[in-house]
C-alpha cells in the first residue's frame, strides 16, 4: 500500500515538490483517471492494465491543458501568489468534482473483473494481492524513471532551473511555459497511471480523490520538497506507518499515525527528510 501512496505522490512530487506550484486538484486528477479506465473497461472491455498507458497519455494532455489554460495565470499573480494558487486549484477541484457528479452521477462504481482484481500471490508464505503488488512494481519504475529524468536529462535541469529563477532561464532561451506545461503533463500522467491501477480494486466515485490527496501531500512533504527520492521514501514510510497503526488502533484511526509521523518528522527536520527547498 505504501508504494501505491508513493505512486500517487510521485506526480504531486513533480508538480508540488519540484515546480513549487500548489496543486489542490491532485486528488481530482486521480479521480478522472479512475473514471477513464472504468469507462474504457465498461465500453470497450479494455482491462485497466492495458488501458493504463492510454489513461496516462490522456492525463498528460489534460494536465498540460490545465496548466496552459488556468495555472499559468495563477502563477503570474504578483501579490500573494501562494493563496492564489491554493484557491485557483481548489476551485478547479470543486468544478471537477461537480462535473463528475453531473456526468457520472454520485454512484459508486467498480470494475468487477480484471486480470489482477481479487487475485493473490503467495511469496514465501505471505499472501499478497496482485493489484497492489503490480502497483508497487509500477511505482518503483515510475520513481526510477522520474529520478533519472530530473537528474540526467536536459529537461530535468531546465525544470529545476525554471523554478529557481524564471527570469534567468528566459535569458538562456528556455520557454518557461513549455517546460512547466510539460512538467504538469508528466505529473498528471503519473497520477493517471496510479488511477488506472487503482481502478481495478477501488470503488470509483466523484469524491474518491479527496481521501488520497491529503495523504499524497503529506507524503511529499514528509520526504521533503524538491526531492524525488524523498517522495519515494515518504511513500514507503507512510505505508508502513499506516499498517502498524492499524495493528494497534481501530482501523478508522489508521491515518492518525501517518499524520502524527509527519508532524514528528517536520518538528525534527523542518524541511522534511530529504528536502532541499
Amino acid at each position, binding site marked *: 500500500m505504501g508504494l501505491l501512496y508513493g505512486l500517487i505522490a510521485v506526480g504531486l512530487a513533480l508538480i508540488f515538490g519540484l515546480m513549487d506550484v500548489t496543486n489542490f486538484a491532485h486528488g481530482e486528477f486521480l479521480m478522472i483517471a479512475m473514471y477513464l479506465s472504468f469507462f474504457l473497461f465498461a465500453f470497450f472491455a479494455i482491462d485497466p492494465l492495458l488501458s493504463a498507458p492510454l489513461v496516462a497519455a490522456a492525463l498528460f494532455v489534460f494536465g498540460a491543458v490545465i496548466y496552459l489554460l488556468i495555472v499559468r495565470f495563477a502563477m503570474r499573480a504578483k501579490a500573494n501568489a501562494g493563496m492564489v494558487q491554493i484557491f485557483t486549484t481548489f476551485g478547479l477541484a470543486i468544478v471537477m468534482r461537480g462535473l463528475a457528479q*453531473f456526468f457520472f452521477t454520485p454512484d459508486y462504481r467498480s470494475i468487477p473483473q480484471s486480470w489482477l482484481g481479487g487475485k493473490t500471490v503467495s511469496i514465501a508464505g505471505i499472501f499478497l494481492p496482485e493489484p497492489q503488488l503490480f502497483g508497487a512494481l509500477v511505482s518503483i519504475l515510475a520513481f526510477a524513471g522520474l529520478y533519472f529524468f530530473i537528474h540526467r536529462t536536459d529537461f530535468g535541469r531546465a525544470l529545476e532551473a525554471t523554478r529557481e529563477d524564471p527570469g534567468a532561464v528566459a535569458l538562456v532561451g528556455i520557454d518557461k511555459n513549455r517546460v512547466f506545461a510539460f512538467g504538469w503533463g508528466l505529473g498528471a500522467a503519473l497520477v493517471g497511471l496510479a488511477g488506472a491501477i487503482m481502478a481495478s480494486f477501488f470503488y470509483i466515485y466523484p469524491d474518491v480523490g479527496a481521501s488520497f490527496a491529503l495523504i499524497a501531500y503529506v507524503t511529499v512533504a514528509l520526504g521533503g520538497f524538491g526531492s524525488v527520492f524523498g517522495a519515494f521514501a515518504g511513500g514507503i514510510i507512510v505505508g508502513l506507518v499506516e499498517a502498524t497503526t492499524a495493528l494497534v488502533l481501530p482501523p478508522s484511526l489508521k491515518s492518525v499515525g501517518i499524520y502524527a509521523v509527519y508532524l514528528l518528522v517536520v518538528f525534527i527536520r523542518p524541511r522534511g527528510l530529504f528536502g532541499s527547498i
Partner: protein
Amino acid sequence: MDKEFAARRRRDLIIAAVLAAIAAATPLFVKDVVVQNILILTLMYAGLSQSWNILSGYCGQISLGHALYFGLGAYTTELLFTKFGVLPWFGMLAGGVVSALIAMGLGYPFFRLRGHYFVIATIVIAEIGLLLFHNWEWAGAAMGITIPIRGDSWLKFQFLRTKLPYFYFALVLCCLAWFVTWWLENSKWGFWWRAVKDNPDAAESLGVDVFNSKMGAAAVSAFLVAVGGSFYAQFVSYIDPESVMGFQFSLLMALPAVLGGIGTLWGPVLGAAILIPLTELTRFKFGGSGRGVDLIVYGTLIVLISLALPRGLLSLFSRPKKTGAAR
C-alpha cells in the same frame, strides 16, 4: 502621515458603525426565513474570516486548519451543556479558552515551520482532531451530539420560533471580530505582525519578538473562531465531527478573506458579503438536482475571482498610486 492614518481609522470606525446599524435594522424589513438564514450565515462567516485573517492575513501564517478551533468551540459548548448542564454562554467562553490554549500549545512546535510545511501541518492537525472526535464514544463519535430542545430561552441560547436572536448574536460576533482587528491594527501587536509577515528575519533583528507575536495572533484568532463554533452549534442544534470540524470549514473561513483582500480590515467582511449569499443561492438554485451543478458554478467563480483579482476585491477601491506602499 500620522494624521492621515488617524483620520482613516476614524473613518473606518464610523463606516463600521453605520453598516452595523443598517445590518441591525434589516430584520425589520426582511421577514423571509430563508433570507434571514443566509444573512446569519453571512455574518457568521464574516466574523470567522475576520478572526482567521488575524493569524493568516496580518501575521502571514497561513492556516488551513482553523476548522479544529471551530469544532473545539462547538464541542466544548455542547459537551458541557449536554453532560454537565453548563449553560452555553459559559460553554462558549470555555470553548474559546480551550481553543486559544490549544492554539498556543500547537504554536510552540508549529511556528518553527515555514511555507508549505506549515500549511500542511495545520491541515493535518485539524484532520487528526476530526478523526479523534470520530472515534471518541463519550463525545458521540460519528453520531455527533443532538442538542436537547427545551424551548425558547435566552438563558440556554435556544430559539425555535424565531431566528432573530441568532441574527443579532451573529452580528455582535462579526462586529466584535472586526473591532478586535481594528483595535489590534494600530497596536504594537499589529505592527509586529505585519513585520513578521513581510520579513521575519529582519523583524527579529530589529527586536520584534517573532515567536510570541505569532503566538498572540494564534490565540486571539483561535478564541474568536471557537466562539463562532459555539454559536454555530447552538444555531443548527446538531453537531457531528464532519459538520463542524471538516476541512471545508477551514477553507470557508479563509475564502472570504482571500476574495475580499487578505490582511486587510475590510476584506473578510466584503468577501463574506459577496461569497456566502452566492454560495447559498447557487446551492438553493442548482443544488436540488443533486447533480453537482452548484459545485460547478461555485468552483468556477472561485477560480475566476482568484485569477482576476489576486489582491482581493478591495483592490478595486484603492487608488492605484497607493497600492504599492499602503497595504
